[in-house]
């Protein structure tokens, strides 16, 4: 491998990592918001709203947050593969 190519791939790896960190930050904010936010910190305030027969805060704490968790993992698996290809660090 030439030096130039080496530098480019090092730069790509760095850019990939930055893009990954940005994606992680977005998803973890959602993770925090639905569980600790809606399910714990804001639960009493949200309980004034009704959602399919549930108090909204209670629904987040015992149902909604779990559905969002599952979705977050699949969204990450999907988005990060696009980013990997974009920076040429994909494993296949």
């Amino acid at each position: 491998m030439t030096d130039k190519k080496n530098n480019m791939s090092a730069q790509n790896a760095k850019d990939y990592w930055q893009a990954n960190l940005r994606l992680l930050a977005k998803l973890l904010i959602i993770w925090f918001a639905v569980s600790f936010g809606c399910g714990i910190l804001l639960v009493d305030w949200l309980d004034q709203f009704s959602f399919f027969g549930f108090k909204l805060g209670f629904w987040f704490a015992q149902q909604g947050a779990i559905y969002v968790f599952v979705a977050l993992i699949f969204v990450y698996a999907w988005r990060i593969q696009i980013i990997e290809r974009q920076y040429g660090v994909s494993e296949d």
Partner: protein
Amino acid sequence: MSTQLLTYLFVGLSFALYIGIAIWSRAGSTRDFYVAGGGVNPVVNGMATAADWMSAASFISMAGIISFMGRDGSVYLLGWTGGYVLLALLLAPYLRKFGRFTVPDFIGERYYSKVARVVAVVCLIFVSFTYVAGQMRGVGIVFSRFLEVDVTTGVIIGMAVVFMYAVLGGMKGITYTQVAQYCVLIFAYMVPAIFISIMITGNPIPQLGFGSEVADGSGLSVLEKLDGVSKDLGFSAYTEGSKSTIDVFAITAALMFGTAGLPHVLVRFFTVPKVSDARKSAGYALAFIAILYTTAPAVASFARLNLVDTVHNTSYEQAPQWFSNWESTGLVGWEDKNNDGVMQYSAGTDNEVKIDRDIMVLANPEIANLPGWVIALVAAGGVAAALSTAAGLLLVISSSISHDLLKQTLMPKITEKQELLFARMAAAVAVCIAGLFGIYPPAFVAQVVAFAFGLAAASLFPAIVLGIFSKRINKEGAIAGMLMGLIFTFTYIVYFKFAAPELNNADYWLLGISPEGIGLVGMLLNFAAAFTVSRFTAPPPKQVQDLVEDIRIPSGASAASYH
């Protein structure tokens, strides 16, 4: 056929299935034994992880705990699922890229230190053993309740079965039996849940029935009715909490970060072929887990409502059949304090009915008038849940001893064949110790199982996350952090639970955080110690910084192996 006979048949058939799988998937190499050869399909691994994760406590006790805690029970639902997001986003893909066999492997290499590796082994063994003792006890209890053998015989049968497939098959045997165990346990959980949902609300999907109107013509929703009934009996409303917000926050966080730091869960992601598979596999695992975890709170509310309806203010003569069936086990009981022959249930001192939380799941099939085969199915499901978790834990204990302690630290010259033999011996010894804990449970076991999470959160989780996301954290920092987190959390728990239990209330707790949630503080101290100590000591050597760069990018991953 009698229910008893059906139960023997179902449990027996499921055991035959597990042993058959164990013989078919014998481990031939250390790679097979530690990481199932590294070629497990991500969906299969997700299912195995789900069975690994859902223990006797999830299957038997969780719905009951929630039904008595109401909204405060959310800490378990959020805590034991939210950790998978951290696992999938922050840990699993990088550990897979690292591509070795165990969690201490990662800590030992990343922190270029045998001391760090041994500290990790100590954390791992402490966390896993407290956990596995509870599982063996669970096996014994299920046996004794459903098959009317005593707890000791039950534990020995359970040990024999786990011994067969954990010692013979290692990770490979465990993975495929866990898939079978997941199918048994989820089917056994859902069938009664669906029937009780139909009975209470007319809706066959428990998650939807949970928010529906009660099918008694009152026009009230399940939760409205439950709130009203709870208040009438002197309890707090079901959908309102009684724990302080900071404590709920801390307990949830300790369970989440602890989940992400549990070695027997982490090691499952070493078994898939690719980095991208590790991410997807965590998603499948959580999806399979979510089926049970979103059903449990619905079952909790239905069972609670039904219990109050059928028991409170009913004359003992007319008590439902299941009540008298379970009275002999001591899980329910009635004491006629005012001698009126009627059962009064309330939060006050005039309460006459004793109800064990486990009854909510165990007696569900009878409460819903389901046939004998459903009861037999629940027994097989309970055993499957306990055995699958026990096997996963025993494997990480044995591999940390044979691989991390012997091969990597004390006896580096042993051959692969000898290492495999040591792994099998370690597994055999671990099964026996776990069995002894199950037969003679030390008084502290039941109390400490929940704390395994706090300890994992305070010790292993920060060391792994920092090892991936920071190049600057060095061995001094990591070791100081792990010890700081472990010692602080351990001391706090021992102080309030054993040394001074009379002070165990919010007035004396640090910041109002109970021992269950203190792992969060331990974790923050770990992070703080790791950063501070690393700042004042030399940065990690070049090859370690290169290792960190390498695990951050997916390309170039190979199957788990020696290097």
